[in-house]
């Protein structure tokens, strides 16, 4: 039987395994689903799974191996921006095709990558709009010290000012270059930072006079320490909501959700979306888990935006391949650029010429069971990677 090889390039070990393993799982599910329905152009998808091991040179090496040795037609992978930056030249060199599913800072456009991910305009901006509407006047910015939070916060810094928020009401600190221009806004901690006592004390002081909220771009396991400290300090969602951009249902599995009740999230998909498409998707995934291969965790699983964007990526690729009539990346990219739609679990997504997707954006409030209650939605938001300097 004829097959078509696709690559799965995620970290299954190391620090990023916490997040990325779920994406491997959903991809395997998607391939099985497509294969059961007859495959793509009559060929079954044969995934080649490699472990990027949370190590960026390894990502580059494995990407090259997928392209040079396995000759995969497309790759689905990467979580961190740095891993994407490391594999980008490889995809350009071999003229391959990579689907990237995780919210990111933008400011990039490779002809060989499709960003199914949320751009800043599809997450941070709508979330801030919502908070402004709710009447919040003070914004504390905190994040992990790397490019996604830094860039996002810089964009938000400009955006908030354009909305009339005074600089002194943007918390977390500013850094200026020699010419006095702000080059970084917000408070930053390194990856895996675990001691938030000091920062939470600062936030508490910041919120003392009310009407304050926190924009959280902390990534990874630091969130646990952060929210435990927040909860212990007595800051509640009613006093000061925290809106997080890197916490989805999947991360909630390891967080004390009781402490997070009422805090906010913003994504282009929530598991709690009450649509037939989503219901079916969740049901099928759960069914698949029962027969999933060894290594896939079977209990207590949820779905979340990065997973769904991975899922969408595969279906968009399938549609594009079918439209192009070939697996050749170049033709597939052309097809995608022409605008292909897919009715995914989070609503319809449409590929854009600029390699991003138009999709619905939702604001949600955390519930104690680790789900979001949807408070607001914005339909068909255009994916724009270059926002900095536009406000």
């Amino acid at each position, binding site marked *: 039987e004829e097959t078509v090889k696709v690559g799965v390039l995620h970290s299954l070990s190391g620090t990023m395994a916490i*997040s990325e393993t779920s994406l491997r799982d959903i991809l395997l599910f998607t391939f099985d689903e497509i294969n059961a329905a007859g495959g793509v152009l009559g060929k079954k998808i044969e995934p080649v799974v490699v472990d990027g091991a949370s190590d960026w040179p390894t990502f580059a090496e494995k990407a090259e191996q997928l392209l040079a040795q396995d000759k995969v037609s497309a790759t689905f992978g990467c979580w961190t921006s740095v891993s994407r930056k490391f594999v980008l030249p490889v995809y350009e060199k071999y003229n391959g095709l990579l689907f990237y599913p995780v919210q990111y800072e933008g400011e990039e456009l490779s002809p060989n990558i499709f960003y199914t991910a949320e751009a800043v305009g599809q997450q941070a901006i709508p979330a801030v709009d919502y908070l402004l509407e709710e009447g919040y006047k003070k914004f504390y910015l905190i994040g992990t010290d790397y490019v996604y939070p830094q860039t996002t916060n810089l964009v938000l810094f400009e955006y908030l000012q354009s909305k009339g928020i005074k600089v002194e009401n943007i918390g977390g600190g500013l850094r200026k270059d020699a010419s006095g221009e702000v080059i970084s806004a917000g408070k930053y901690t390194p990856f895996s930072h675990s001691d938030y*006592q000091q920062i939470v*004390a*600062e936030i508490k002081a910041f919120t003392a006079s009310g009407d304050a909220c926190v924009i959280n771009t902390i990534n990874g396991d630091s969130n646990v*320490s952060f929210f*435990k400290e927040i909860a*212990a300090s007595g800051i509640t969602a009613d006093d000061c909501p925290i809106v997080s951009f890197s916490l989805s249902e999947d991360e909630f599995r390891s967080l004390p959700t*009781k402490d997070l009740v009422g805090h906010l999230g913003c994504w282009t998909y929530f598991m709690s979306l009450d649509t037939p498409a989503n219901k079916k998707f969740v049901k099928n995934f759960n069914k698949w888990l029962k027969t999933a291969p060894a290594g896939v*965790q079977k209990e207590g699983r949820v779905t979340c935006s990065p997973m769904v964007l991975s899922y969408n990526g595969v279906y968009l690729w399938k549609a594009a391949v079918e439209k192009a009539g070939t697996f050749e990346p170049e033709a597939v990219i052309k097809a995608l650029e022409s605008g292909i739609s897919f009715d995914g679990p989070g609503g319809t997504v449409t590929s854009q010429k600029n390699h991003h997707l138009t999709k619905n954006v939702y604001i949600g409030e955390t519930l104690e*069971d680790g789900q979001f209650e949807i408070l607001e939605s914005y339909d068909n938001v255009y994916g724009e990677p270059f926002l900095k300097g536009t406000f």
Partner: protein
Amino acid sequence: QEDATRDVLERLALASSSEQSAITEELSALGDPYIKDFVDAWRTGEVFSYDVSESETIVLRKVSEKFRRLSNDEIFEIADEENDENLSKIRPSRKLRKVLKTITDTIDLSSPDPRARIEAALKLGLSQKTDYLEALQSKIETEENEKVRLKFEEAINISLLANAEDDEALKHSIARLGELASLPARDGIIGIQNEATESGDAEMVAICAEAIKDIDSAQKTIERWGNLVRGMSTGSVLLIVAFGLAITFGLMGIINMAHGEFIAIGGYTCYVVQNLFADAFGTQSAAYQWFYWTAIPISFVVAGVIGYGLEKGMFRFLYKRPLESLLATWGLSMIMQQLFRLNFGAANVQVNTPDVLIGNFEVAGVALSYTRIFVIGFAVFVILMTWLLLSKTNLGLYIRSVMQNRNMASSLGIPVSKVNSLTFAFGCGLAALAGAALSQIGNVGPTMGQTYIVDSFMVVVVGGVGNLLGAGLSAMGIGTVDQFLQPYWGPVMGKIIVYFVIILFLQWKPGGLFPTKSRSMDD
């Protein structure tokens, strides 16, 4: 009265959002403490609507695993909670919650808990609404607790910042807020100062500046004490992690690269025990609250037994080749990490905080959470336990002799291999205790231990390898320096500076605080 309240609440819970505002008016008139109780339950998902029939829907409240009807507290049997089509969880909308919050805050002004009174007063003051100002002014008359009175006064004055009758009153309020060192008032005063600057009211500007200065200087003091307290808490985390290392590494000379994984064993043990308790007693039961206290000794034993086995099966062969133990433990660490992933999933798992550890303790503006206080106490306990073991028991004496000279110890009749196994097991047990403690302040996952390892190694060397008292002092020192640097340099630069300070410290004391004295040539 409560019946009336319940009735209103039931209507509110079932009302559509457009009807709700009218009902909340009713509710605020009632002012019954039960409202607060119910609103909390409502917010945290313990309230359900139930369709008794096509036309009749009632509200149920889940109280310790049982459904009770809101209107009359009758127990209502629900056979299959999961799949009952008539049952659905309801929750207040964000908007409604905000409204309810002010209602409950007003109620809280009469709460028996002084802390609740204080918080409510400040909230209401910050809202700067005249209705609440009146409520506050009437309450302050009857308030007996001096501390609470001050807070009420603060709240009133904050409210007056917007509602003062004339400039004189306003100035008075500002000055008073300065005296009270009211941080919540700071933004408001700044606002007034800005306006005054624009309108050229120099006196007002000066009064504001004075008040802000007072507030800031009080805040500085709080910060300094806060740093000290937080430093101790940071230090005790390092210490707990370091103690296991001080045993396996400081005493036994085994560079145990898998120490972090033994910490994770502690974390995962808590997780497993928590789940067992949840299965056996249900998460709402009183017995469930005991899961954590049960898990602590179990984690020690589990890691100890695993450590014992590993020593017997592996490290035993490596004492003559201590450097090789690095490679072996590295391999072990890789294996254990992946086994955690395969067993518990790659994602971190969640260990709950027992109710007694929820919340914080505040003295003079310096707050420390109960979990942190627990960790400090736990660190003291671990030090004591280790110290007692090493200095007061036969085993302790044997451990120290074996670690100094294996051959000689055995020539004197000390059962060396048993002592080795027990020591290693003890070190692993301590690591797991650290993991159990960390589960309360951080995450539990395959790599949870790694975060602390580098810092803990520093604690061990700054203290003097093999010196427990030194480890204690250095942990506190490092923690405190770290917390004092953070406000000025931020968490990252603060940490970097701590490392360089340590390097410089070792310049001065290359063997740590308490170096091992020896005249021997080869150390």
